[in-house]
């Protein structure tokens, strides 16, 4: 029995072919999985809202409140208490969206859209542009001082500016690659182990299969942690441009 490539399951094929102005926007498995994940998130929150938000919370309301409180704390810590109300909805949506995409991919047969570098890259670039807009919006041209760390001797400035530019540009790249690599690696490991389990006889195949179960548990933790890291770093980057050093 030949073993399928562990990367094979990352391939995408159009389910509903579609194109707008020459751009192929066919709906594929990844998009459907993402929609299901987003729908679950929205559904859970609407369940809380439609059920009537009470002063004494039920289980689902507690969960929703816990998530919002947690992210609210993060926003307060990295961006500032004054901007909490402004950024909380965006950061919370980002966290929940990435979390949903990460977790939905763990269901066998589903797809993790965050294992696509273009997707994580699009988000990272979008966030990077957003930080620039916020920075210039808040500080005007003074925002460029972010390229010169405080206390740097004047002689060093020509050297520091390129370094700071590189470090700023590295941020979206690291942000995108971190999420993509973690999701891809996890799923690849799972695919390899599952491939082994499937291609071996039962008397030895139970071993890699057992590992897939354990790694799957680990992947749930990684899915949550990576969503958390992505949002935390987003907060840090936004906080940096708001506070400037």
């Amino acid at each position: 029995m030949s073993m399928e490539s562990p990367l094979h399951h990352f391939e995408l094929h159009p389910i509903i072919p579609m194109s707008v102005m020459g751009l192929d926007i066919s709906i594929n498995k990844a998009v459907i999985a993402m929609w299901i994940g987003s729908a679950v998130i929205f559904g859970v929150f609407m369940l809380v809202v439609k059920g009537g938000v009470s002063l004494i919370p039920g289980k689902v309301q507690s969960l929703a409140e816990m998530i919002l409180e947690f992210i609210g704390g993060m926003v307060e810590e990295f961006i500032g208490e004054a901007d909490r109300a402004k950024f909380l909805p965006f950061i919370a949506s980002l966290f929940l969206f990435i979390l949903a995409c990460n977790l939905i991919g763990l269901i066998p047969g589903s797809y993790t859209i965050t294992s696509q570098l273009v997707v994580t890259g699009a988000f990272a670039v979008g966030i990077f542009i957003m930080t620039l807009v916020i920075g210039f919006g808040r500080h005007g041209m003074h925002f460029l001082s972010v390229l010169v760390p405080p206390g740097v001797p004047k002689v060093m400035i020509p050297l520091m500016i390129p370094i700071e530019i590189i470090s700023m540009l590295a941020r979206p790249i690291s942000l995108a690659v971190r999420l993509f690599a973690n999701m891809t690696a996890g799923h690849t490991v799972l695919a390899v182990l599952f491939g082994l389990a499937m291609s071996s006889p039962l008397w030895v195949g139970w071993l890699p299969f057992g590992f897939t179960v354990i790694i799957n548990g680990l992947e749930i933790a990684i899915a949550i942690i990576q969503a958390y890291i992505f949002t935390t770093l987003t907060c840090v980057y936004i906080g940096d441009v708001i506070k400037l050093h």
Partner: protein
Amino acid sequence: MPQFEQVSVFGSLIFWSLISFGLLFVLLKKYAFPPILEALEARQEKIRSEIEASETLKKEAQEIKLQLEKEFQGAHAKAESIVQMASNEAKKLQEKTLSETQAKVRQMQADVEREIETSRIKLLKEIRSYTAQLTIASTEKFLKKSLDEKDKKRLADESIEEVIREMEERSRN
């Protein structure tokens, strides 16, 4: 790696992921987050106000406690002074009664002594007269003659003196 090779799906993935995120963000921001955040704030406010209220109550209770303690101490001091006053009064009354009784006793004693003295004098007078008469009578009988007034007086005085002396000696013994 399909993620780098399948360039044809990139457009669709970027498009749909950004659109989906945007939609989710708008929906959550508009419908889901506000009521939950409001509930959180309301709860926070309720907890804060209740804690504040309980702290005010605690403060009031402490003030009342302090006041009560003060009043209790005042009452205690008052009670002590009343007891002290009563005891002083009782002492005074006792002393007064004692001194009155002592005076009365002394008075009675003096009265009794005076009475005794009077009785004694009266008795002595009577004894003196009886002794005189007895002495004169016995002497007259003994001498078979009557004595003149001068002897009578001398005899009587001697006898009386003797009798009294004897009586006094007897009483002394």
